[in-house]
């Protein structure tokens, strides 16, 4: 029967543990050295990156000053402001020349416009004379028709009465109405 030397087996196990721990120490030492080397690398990178950072910052500052000092800058800014505001004004520009021809289309032939006033707020006021009261009724009926109330609507009349004009006795009245803002839009081909 073979003899097992238990004492020797214990010695082998103890030696291998010592080797493992010794290797672990060396490995950990290498890691420590690596960390120190990495720290040195970081210091170097921080130093070079800081230099780069301040160099770019200086370049930006110089470039900004250089651009701000350009003699054409003020003129360019003024021209840009002019262009921007010109575009806004032209975009909202009212073209009144279309108003009177549009008004003529809805006006009775017998009606005589004595005074006329149009405001940018969308209202028109007029003083009108017609030969008879039936003409006033006809004048009002026109605006109930869809083909005529497209551009002028919400008709209100006031001061309806008789007035003498030479030998003729006329009916006079004041009219207040709203106009379609599209009437003031830019005609084709203008600006």
């Amino acid at each position, binding site marked *: 029967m073979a003899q097992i030397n238990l004492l020797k087996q214990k010695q082998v196990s*103890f030696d291998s543990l*010592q080797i493992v*721990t010794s290797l*672990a*120490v060396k490995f*950990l*030492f290498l*890691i*420590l050295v690596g*960390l*120190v080397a*990495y*720290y040195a690398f*970081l*210091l170097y*990178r*921080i130093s070079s*990156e*800081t230099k*780069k*950072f301040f160099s*770019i*910052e200086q*370049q*930006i500052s110089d*470039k*900004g000053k250089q*651009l701000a000092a*350009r003699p*054409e800058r*003020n*003129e*360019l*800014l*003024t*021209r*840009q*402001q*002019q*262009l921007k*505001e*010109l575009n806004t*004004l*032209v975009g909202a*520009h*009212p073209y*009144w*020349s279309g*108003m*009177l*021809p549009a008004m003529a289309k809805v006006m009775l032939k017998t009606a005589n416009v*004595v*005074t*006329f*006033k*149009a*405001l*940018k707020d969308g209202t028109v006021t007029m003083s009108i004379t017609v030969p008879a009261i039936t003409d006033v009724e006809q004048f009002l009926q026109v605006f109930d028709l869809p083909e005529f109330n497209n551009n002028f609507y919400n008709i209100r009349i006031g001061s309806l009465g008789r007035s003498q004009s030479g030998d003729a006795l006329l009916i006079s009245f004041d009219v207040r109405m709203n106009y379609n803002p599209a009437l003031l839009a830019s005609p084709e081909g*203008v*600006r």
Partner: protein
Amino acid sequence: MDILNAKKNFTISSMPTRQHTVFEIIMLVIVSALLYWFIISPKQAKLDALTLGSGELSAEFSSLEDNERKFNKAVADMKAHPEEIADLDEALPLDNRVTKLHLALENLTQSSGMTVGDISISYKSDVVISGDKEQLASPFKVTRKLQKMITALDVTGTYDQFQGLLQKLEQSGRILTITSMEASPTADQLLNFKISLEAFYYE
């Protein structure tokens, strides 16, 4: 007493080799961890922040260079189009010279065949409109704001002439915005028109 003596005489070198190695492992782990946590990690964060900052600054610098190119192009465009610049100055003048507007309205009215009754322009009378040495020396240095001149134009003529005047005002080189118009008859079978309009300038 023996225990006390044993404690007094305890040193690392006095430890058995195996305990000694375990102690070294623990110390190395602790030192490495502390080195990483308290020294390397903050430096790494600082480097990351610096790299990020440098990247952002580089992008900003590139953008500035791009703006410089656009600026140069805009300046070249501006210098290559003197007629358009003159038109721009006519549309929105850089001065508040009220006489220019007066003359323009008078010319427009007369060229449409109408008679000028009155031209009334409201403007700030305390503002320098000529001989401003500082502005003459560097005309674009001052910061300007768009201003309005409220104008009332009183003219006499026929309906067709008035239509012509309206078209001339609309197509005028100077921006003239009509805010209201009024018509009434005159004794000589003509019509009297009152136009309120706004003209613009920079001050």
